[in-house]
């Protein structure tokens, strides 16, 4: 029988990147800049545009990604540029269209599926967990699922209990998928590309508070590789370990701590599965103290996993118990002051660092 079309290995893209990305900072012909200072949203859009331009197998599919321009305006303008076959609006059928993305990936496409927010990903859990994460293994290696599933995550915008989840730590529990969380414009620009080049399912979490944040985007990734953590602020006294939406909060806390004479190192995990143990342990080995900041709930969280790994791998380097700043164990409330009290904050991080400094 004729062999079925199969997915390409990661190293052989049909129309691969040339390694010479467009470095034009100012649009000369009206085309948007792909490097320079831009918002996280623009950086993600530039990454989508590049992927769609470079590889015919790539298409974007999700709720309101086309005519509406994306719920968070990430894909604004892409429908006009790439047409409805490749910027595909879907019905409100999360399980159906996520599963369709998986099916398309199984037979050679490189779909980018946008789930409007992580809250709705619960409706697609069956497809993510029972299919995307298991098909390669269940089939004894016959099937690959090179899909990228993007979704917004996090709280902080008074959207109440059903629109404020941070469930990336949950997903990081699952073998067979990768979980990444770009926290900077540069990572938004480049991590999608690396996720698409990955032969396995990658879940990409975009914290909703980041879209308007501006940052520098270089012509090449500042941090190459999606599985590596980055030290965003070197320091000697304590390692603050975080990712995504709380990176800015941690950097602000570190500034405040510096004024108090405490030199904090801030680690941006970037990837929750796999975790970059080497970078974490090397940092803790230098600072001897660790505080983990995670917008997820404390119980059974990614912060619990990181804490466990530090005790497993760097216990004797520690001068203090590992500290954690997580969300309070409550469905996120609407009222602004209650929501703020629920989430990690600069004050909470500073307090946790002080406790780590003087156990």
């Amino acid at each position, binding site marked *: 029988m004729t062999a*079925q079309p199969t997915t390409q290995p990661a190293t052989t893209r049909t129309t691969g990147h040339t390694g010479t990305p467009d470095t034009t900072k100012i649009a000369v012909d009206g085309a948007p800049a792909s490097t320079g200072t831009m918002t996280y949203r623009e950086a993600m859009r530039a990454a989508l545009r590049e992927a769609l331009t470079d590889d015919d197998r790539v298409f974007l599919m999700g709720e309101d990604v086309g005519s509406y321009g994306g719920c968070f305006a990430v894909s604004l303008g892409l429908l006009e540029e790439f047409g409805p076959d490749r910027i595909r609006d879907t*019905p409100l*059928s999360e399980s159906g269209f996520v599963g369709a993305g998986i099916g398309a990936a199984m*037979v050679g496409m490189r779909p980018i599926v946008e789930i409007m927010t992580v809250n709705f990903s619960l409706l697609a859990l*069956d497809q993510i967990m*029972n299919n995307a994460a298991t098909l390669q293994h269940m089939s*004894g290696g016959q099937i690959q699922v090179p899909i990228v599933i993007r979704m917004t995550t996090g709280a902080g915008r008074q959207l109440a209990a059903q629109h404020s989840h941070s469930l990336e730590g949950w997903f990081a529990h699952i*073998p067979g998928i990768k979980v990444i969380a770009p926290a900077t414009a540069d990572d938004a620009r480049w991590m999608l590309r690396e996720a698409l080049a990955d032969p*396995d399912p990658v879940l990409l979490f975009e914290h909703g508070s980041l879209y308007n944040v501006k940052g520098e985007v270089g012509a090449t990734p500042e941090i190459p590789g999606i599985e590596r953590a980055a030290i965003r602020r070197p320091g000697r006294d304590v390692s603050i370990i975080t990712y995504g939406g709380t990176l800015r909060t941690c950097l602000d806390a570190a500034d405040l701590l510096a004024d108090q004479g405490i030199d904090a190192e801030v680690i941006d995990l970037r990837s929750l599965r796999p975790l970059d143990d080497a970078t974490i342990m090397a940092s803790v080995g230098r600072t001897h103290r660790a505080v983990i900041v995670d917008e997820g709930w404390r119980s059974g969280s990614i912060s619990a996993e990181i804490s466990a790994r530090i005790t497993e791998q760097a216990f004797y380097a520690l001068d203090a118990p590992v500290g954690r700043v997580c969300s309070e164990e409550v469905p996120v409330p609407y009222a602004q002051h209650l929501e703020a009290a629920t989430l990690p904050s600069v004050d909470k991080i500073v307090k946790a660092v002080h406790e780590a400094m003087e156990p």
Partner: protein
Amino acid sequence: MNDHLRHLYREMLRIRRFEERCVELYSATKIRGFLHLCIGEEAVAVGVMAALDPDDRVASTYREHGHALARGVPIRSVMAEMYGKMEGCSRGRGGSMHLFDTSVGLYGGNAIVAGGLPLTIGMGLADRLTGRPIVNVALFGDGALAEGEFHESMNLAALWNLPVLFACENNRYAMGTALSKTHAETDLAARAAGYGMPAETVDGMDVVAVEEATRRAVDSIRAGEGPRFIEFLTYRFRAHSMYDPDRYRESTEVEEWKERDPIARLAEQLIDDGVIDQESIDAIEAEIERELDDAVEFAEAGTLEPVEDLTRFVLTEVPT
């Protein structure tokens, strides 16, 4: 034509004897896990697969031994999979419920009811986007019509005019609960038609009728006319799984359906029409018996995957 009818008969008998052998092996604890038998439903597996092209794809359920064998997965590799051996079609990592062989277009047994349907939507979408004349067949039971994934998939297939055949094996029970106890409307084809695609009900105990209906649907789908739904009325003669005491249906009902056994029925017809005689049937039985002995021998002699390889195939192995 007569050769083809004999082929259909042989294929159905081969599935029946394979599963009967599996029951023996299960009792002998050679096979473990779940074992969902399709005995009684062989005409659907054989009729549907007979109407497909080599490049077409099938996404199936956890009751898929018949689908796999009829689709052309080698009987040796199916049996080795039942044994959990490396020579199995899924390297022993899938078992009875997860038979895969992409070389013949079998994209798995899926053990989540309706879980495979969205995959066929994606495969169909990929084919539409790339212009490949492939038909993607979703096989599922009546129970799937209660799942959201069925309805999401039907809508997407019709909306995007995808090359997907929805092939429903209505055996009247979702595990132990009768269709009429769980569905407000039990006319499944009528419900399917509500999604704006042609839908029909076919006698799933008649392999020729199954093949003809499938062929009509597949031809139309391949011509770009969009998805179709076929409900095959069928019945499983045995319990849901080896654990099922079968308390939820009357033995008289089972006996009545056995009167319509697709294999006995075809044999009778072929003998009446002079297409086959008892001697040929006996010869086919003996051939299948030898084939099964060989498959069991192959599986017995198979290799247990080294435990050091346990975590392989979780992520793609990138050559270093």
